[in-house]
């Protein structure tokens, strides 16, 4: 067996994998934030709570209705997405004419309500969620042990991210979306129902968060607070990447997850703050963000 700078490869690759998994969640969540921000011009503070709701809906499906993981992977984003559509229709859309900061405050309030309600019902100790039997176990790759479920999380996130990129950048629907982002009034004048597009976009962004939540459920326990701290890290990811580009959000998310994982091996004390430190450096060197367009 070889060693790298005194670190056994098992530990190194284990953390790299864990970093990639965190990176998957950063990528999906920052992607959702970027899509929502593009069209609604608000930062969705409820995103972390919606990620948590995704995990909880999967847990409820399994424990109350006996619906398995695979069905929950479709159902949870759908349910949370519908809740998101209602939130957009009845609350967020009424603030469209105001300063965007009110959208931030509204979604922050909603996040408090959702997290508080789940904490009241389920406590904050966390509930276990079994890895689906098809993905239990793992493979020995020689240099490391690869649990099947973790490999699946990385692959599934990559697929969903690239699919989102494809829809937005390469299809007609995506073209409408980009047009509405660029100039909503003109797009509406061409006969496209922009308010509907806005609602569906919010629902889609929220569904992405819920999808990430279901993926996360078997890895981290299902916990009402699971989204609260994560969303702040994702905010830093978004500041680093800039919200101008879909691919930028994906690359930044995975990249920062990796960096965080490697930091955990070489200098564990800094692993919680490394993303914030990178944010500071990026702000000093390239204030608009790595993929951002200068305002």
């Amino acid at each position, binding site marked *: 067996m070889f060693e790298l700078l005194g670190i056994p490869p098992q530990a190194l690759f284990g953390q790299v994998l864990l970093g990639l998994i965190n990176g998957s969640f950063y990528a999906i969540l920052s992607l959702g934030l970027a899509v929502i921000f593009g069209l609604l011009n608000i930062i969705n503070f409820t995103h972390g709570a919606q990620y948590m709701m995704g995990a909880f809906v999967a847990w409820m499906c399994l424990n109350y209705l006996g619906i398995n993981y695979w069905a929950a992977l479709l159902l949870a984003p759908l349910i949370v997405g519908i809740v998101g559509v209602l939130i957009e229709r009845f609350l967020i859309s009424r603030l469209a004419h105001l300063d965007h900061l009110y959208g931030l*405050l509204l979604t922050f309030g909603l996040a*408090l309500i959702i*997290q508080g309600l789940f904490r009241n019902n389920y406590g904050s100790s966390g509930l276990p969620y079994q890895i689906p039997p098809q993905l239990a176990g793992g493979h020995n790759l020689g240099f490391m042990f690869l649990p099947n479920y973790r490999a699946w999380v990385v692959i599934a996130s990559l697929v969903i991210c690239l699919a989102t990129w494809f829809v937005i950048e390469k299809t007609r629907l995506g073209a409408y979306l980009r047009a509405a982002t660029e100039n909503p009034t003109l797009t509406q004048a061409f006969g496209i129902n922009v308010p509907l597009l806005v609602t569906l976009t919010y629902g889609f962004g929220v569904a992405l968060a819920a999808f990430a939540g279901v993926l996360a459920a078997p890895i981290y326990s299902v916990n009402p607070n699971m989204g609260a701290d994560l969303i*702040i890290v994702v*905010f830093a990811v978004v500041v680093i990447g800039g919200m101008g580009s879909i691919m930028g959000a994906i690359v930044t998310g995975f990249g920062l997850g990796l960096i965080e994982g490697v930091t955990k091996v070489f200098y564990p004390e800094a692993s*919680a703050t490394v993303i914030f430190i990178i944010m500071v450096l990026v702000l000093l060197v390239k204030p608009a963000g790595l993929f951002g367009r200068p305002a």
Partner: protein
Amino acid sequence: MADALSADVPAGGLAVTETTKGTERLHRAIFIGLAVLVAVAPFVAYPVFVMKVMCFALFALAFNLLLGYGGLLSFGHAAYFGMASYVSAYTAKNWGLTPELAILSGTLIAGLLGAVFGSLAIRRQGIYFAMITLALAQMVFFFSLQTPRFTGGEDGIQSVPRGKLFGLISLADDKALYYVVAVIFMAGLLLIYRIIHSPFGQVCKAIRDNEPRAISLGYRANRYKLAVFVLSAALAGLAGSTKAIVFQLASLTDVHWSMSGEVVLMTLVGGLGTVFGPIVGALVIVSMQNYLASLGAWVTVVQGVIFVICVMLFREGIVGVISRAIKRPL
């Protein structure tokens, strides 16, 4: 921004910022009324409760200075409040500093932290500004969590001595401490009032309403933004340091993001961009927390509901509504 550019005077802006003789007299009356209220409060209410309200009111006033008059929404003000609270508690307990020096050192550190974070955050605007301040504050939270030698980790710094003011007057008695806190609170309020109504404050408001125009008039917008940021951080630090001495405790709660959210809520309830609103907001929210303390996580839900109601239906806040009714800026 676009319609503000085309208008010579921002709509409604003049009416609100104009300080007439009558308004000045009204404000003076409010100040005197508030001073009397603060002086008699410990005889009718529980002094520790009133001190808590004053600390949080000062915190909200500091936050409102930045948001209401600088137009900058910081979602990380807990960093200055909490860090100052730690510094004040640490210096009072471990270095044996007298309370006024402990509070001063907390305030200074918060101001320094504000200078560093402010100069980073003002590089971006609007929503990004809020996200950056939140992320930087979270960094302070992790720092506090990981340096238990300084912060006491999960336990916080407990049983901080209240000490003797100037080394002479013991503050162990609640009444004695109360009047020190009252003086700090009134002085903070007066200072903020002066800042808002000074030429400096007027320029800040101009930048808030129309930054390109202020720049074209020759004002260095970023310097003003940074200055108001540092002032706000230092005053938030003053509130945090005082709080640490009053409750003899500095803990992770003070640096957590939920504290940043609470101060936003207080300001929103009281009235954004009003001078006296944050005081009313702090009174409402602190009282609510006291009465609902037994309900546990429901407090979070209630706070969230108040947030949503305020944003959807009640954006002017309590003092904002009164101000509109009597047609005078408050």
